[in-house]
C-alpha cells in the first residue's frame, strides 16, 4: 500500500535502513510546523527533538501549556520506533496513548522524546517512551501506547 501524496522518504515498504532520518519530518504537516527532527538512535530506540517555540507553546511555565506538543512528539517517536523494530516503513495507526505529565517543560529548552517499540503481538505494536528537556533522569512526561499495524501481522 502506498500513500500517493507521501514525499519519497515516506513511501510504504521502504526498508528502515534506507530512510533519510534527517529529512523524515522536515516541513511535513504538524511535525514540520513544530520543527520536530531526528535526534539520535540506538538498537531499539529512537529520539526526536523539538525546539521550544514561544509563539506556539507560550512563555509561561505551566503544565497545561507545553503538554500538547509533547503528545505529538512522543506519538511520532513511538511510531518511528515501531518502524525501526519492524525494519520498514509500513502503514500503522495509533490505537491508544497514555501520557503521564510528570512536570512542566522548561520554557526555552529543546524537548527530546525517546520512543521504543518493546513488543509486537500480531497486528499490535506496543510502545513506550519519555520526554525530557535536558536531563533524561528528570523527565517531563512518560508514554505508553499501542499502534495497529494495518498490513497485518509483524514482518
Amino acid at each position, binding site marked *: 500500500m502506498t*500513500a*500517493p*501524496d*507521501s514525499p519519497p522518504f515516506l513511501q510504504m515498504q521502504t526498508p528502515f535502513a534506507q530512510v533519510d532520518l534527517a529529512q523524515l519530518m522536515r516541513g*511535513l*504537516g*504538524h*511535525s*514540520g*510546523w513544530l520543527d520536530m527532527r531526528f535526534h539520535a538512535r540506538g538498537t531499539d530506540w529512537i529520539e526526536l527533538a523539538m525546539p521550544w517555540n514561544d*509563539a*506556539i*507553546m*507560550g512563555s*509561561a511555565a*505551566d*503544565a*497545561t*501549556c*507545553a*503538554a*500538547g*506538543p509533547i*503528545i*505529538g*512528539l*512522543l*506519538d*511520532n517517536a513511538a511510531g518511528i520506533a515501531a518502524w525501526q523494530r519492524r525494519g520498514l516503513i509500513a502503514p500503522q*495507526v*495509533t*490505537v*491508544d*496513548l*497514555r*501520557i*503521564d*505529565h510528570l512536570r512542566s517543560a522548561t520554557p526555552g529548552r529543546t524537548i527530546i522524546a525517546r520512543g521504543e517499540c518493546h513488543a509486537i503481538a500480531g497486528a499490535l505494536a506496543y510502545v513506550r517512551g519519555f520526554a525530557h528537556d535536558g536531563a533524561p533522569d528528570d523527565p517531563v512526561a512518560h508514554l505508553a501506547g499501542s499502534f495497529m499495524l494495518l498490513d497485518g501481522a509483524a514482518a
Partner: protein
Amino acid sequence: MSGGVTLPPYAASLGIVFAYTQNGLPVIACDPAEHILGRPGFWHGGVIGGLLEAAALAAAASVPGGEGKMLRAANLTIQFTRGGGMERVFAAGSIERAGRRLLNLRAEAWQQDRSRPIATATMNVLLLDR
C-alpha cells in the same frame, strides 16, 4: 475569549476556537490546515490529543469554586477510535468527578456525529492552591 473559554497558547496557535455550548459545557473546534496533518489526509494524533486536553480543561474551568485553584494536568489517556478526515473536529469535556484535590475528566472528539467520536480521552487534573 468568546464563550468564556480560556485556551492554552498551544491550543490557540493550532486554531482551536470556541464553537458553542452544549449541556452547559463548552464545545471547541479546530479546522483542517497544513499544520494539523499527520499522515496525508488525516489529523495528527498529537493535535487530536491537544484538542481533547483543551476540551477537558475547558470543562474543568467550569467547576464551581475552582477560581482559587490552579489546574495541573496529571495524565491523559487517549483512544483513537476512528480516522479523522479533512473536516472540522469538535471536542468537549465533561466532569466525571470533582474531588477536593483531583478532577476526573472525560473528553471526546467528533466530526459529523457526536455519537461516533473519532477519539475519546480520560484525564486527571490536580487542583493546587494558588
